[in-house]
């Protein structure tokens, strides 16, 4: 067990503790000495518009992704769990992007969003010229444009999780409910959905944890722009440390990110447990 513990402590736990300690200093990452500044970094964050923007973006994007990605995954899974012939093909089509490098997908989508790029061209072709936009030029639009890319790439992951969940729903249970006169909507609502709870718990947690850390798509599609409107905690802490040399401030942001992740996990596991008791 020692080698595993060596890596765990050496490359994760000890540096995490160090990170939490740096958060209370003004260290610039280069000089040998630094000053203890107490809660100064956190106080600064409260006054820093960029930090507030990044925190808002991170939480908003995560919440929206948790809901939409799970909904999309569930819809796909239910559709593919039927008797259609193209089941295997569709599963491959919608899952394939999950294994592709996010940098690659993000670069492709940056082109899709160009003012004279494919999305606007297609909108023009189908007579929806009025919907043509400068997708990445307006802060609100740019934020959801990034969310759309993540949905496009990773909904297939949730589809696979829910498909596995649906496999655990016994056919006989559904048959007998049907015989008792329950329509498909009622069967889904009262039998299928409750049995998908374990899948939903995992799905919610997975999306939340990856959503809070979102970096690649933002960095490639907008680099935090226009202005600083699409920065997330991850892109901001990268910039503070490696562009501005503010290592102390940067680790303080990482501490906030960590607390957020723990908060999300605790809340979701709590909800999951409460549901279990009720059953």
């Amino acid at each position, binding site marked *: 067990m020692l080698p595993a513990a060596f890596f765990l402590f050496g490359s*994760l736990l000890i540096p995490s503790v160090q990170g939490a300690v740096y958060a209370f200093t003004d260290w610039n990452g280069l000089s040998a000495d630094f000053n203890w500044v107490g809660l100064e970094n956190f106080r600064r964050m409260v006054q820093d518009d960029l930090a507030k923007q990044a925190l808002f973006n991170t939480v908003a994007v995560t919440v929206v992704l948790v809901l939409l990605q799970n909904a999309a995954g569930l819809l796909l899974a239910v559709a593919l769990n039927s008797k259609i012939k193209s089941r295997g093909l569709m599963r491959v089509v919608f899952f394939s992007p999950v294994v592709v490098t996010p940098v690659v997908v993000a670069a492709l989508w940056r082109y899709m969003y160009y003012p004279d790029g494919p999305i606007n061209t297609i909108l023009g072709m189908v007579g929806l010229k009025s919907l043509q936009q400068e997708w990445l030029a307006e802060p609100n639009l740019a934020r959801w444009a990034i969310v759309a890319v993540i949905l496009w790439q990773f909904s297939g992951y949730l589809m696979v999780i829910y498909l596995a969940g649906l496999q655990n729903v016994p056919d006989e249970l559904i048959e007998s409910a049907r015989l008792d006169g329950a329509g498909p909507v009622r069967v889904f609502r009262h039998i299928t959905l409750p049995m998908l709870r374990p899948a939903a718990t995992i799905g919610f947690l997975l999306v939340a944890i990856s959503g809070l850390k979102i970096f690649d798509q933002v960095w490639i599609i907008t680099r935090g722009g226009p202005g600083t409107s699409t920065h997330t905690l991850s892109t901001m802490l990268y910039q503070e440390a490696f562009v501005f040399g503010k290592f102390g401030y940067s680790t303080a942001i990482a501490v906030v990110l960590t607390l957020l992740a723990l908060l999300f996990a605790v809340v979701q596991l709590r909800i999951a447990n409460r549901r279990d008791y009720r059953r």
Partner: protein
Amino acid sequence: MNRYRKGTLTLEIILYAVAIVYLIPVYVLVVSAFKRPDDPTPQLVPTTHPTLANFTEAWTSANLGRAAISSIVVTVASVGLLVVTASLAAYPLARVTARWSRLAYATFVFGLLLPFQLALIPLYVTMRNLGLVGGVWSLVLLYAGVQMPLCIFLYTEFLRSVPRDYDEAAALDGANRLQAFWHVILPMVRPITGTVVILNAVAIWNDFYTPLLFLTGSGNATLPLAVYTFVSTYGAQWHLIFASLIMTSVPILIAFLAMQKAVFRGYSSGLKG
């Protein structure tokens, strides 16, 4: 029994329509990558004079060959290290019921909730002081730590479901520890090792954040970093960028198609854990 009904046909048609819209970006990617920069055909129409020149030019300008080697070294070394150390550690964690064992397991699994961003900056400083920044081994050391909680979790939960009879038989036969690992533990954890390998290989192969920090400007860039550097330096030369995107994605997609079953099992495995 349910047969292929009208409703199913409608569903199938809807799914095909959704899939076609869904695949538009892929269509754009493929159509554009085979066009010369001065090709007059409109954006979304396939050219009548396809060329492979974009691919050869992108391959050399983006240094993709070298990046592929870096990516392979980092991924193989990290995953190998993780499989060996995590399965060895998971064995006592799953078998010993003493308090220290449960505490150790909790420590390992707690790591699952830590975003690695917290550890990243101190790690960067330590690696820089050790002179490791810029080399691929810094990534291997880092991934071995960051991915360890997931591996330990998967192995331990799996081993708990394997009956003890196996290991006792091996111990009775007088196997030493290494032999026991090679002949007993490894075969025992084989079903879950596929999952561990796939989840970690995809995560490490595709990671961009860590190489951006540790390998920028080093000549050892992995594929995601090489593609990123290429995209930011060749800005508007999309025909070249698209060729590079295709070349980096096709190998992964082939690997996925070849190991479909194992991949789907791996990605849905959290459900049994």
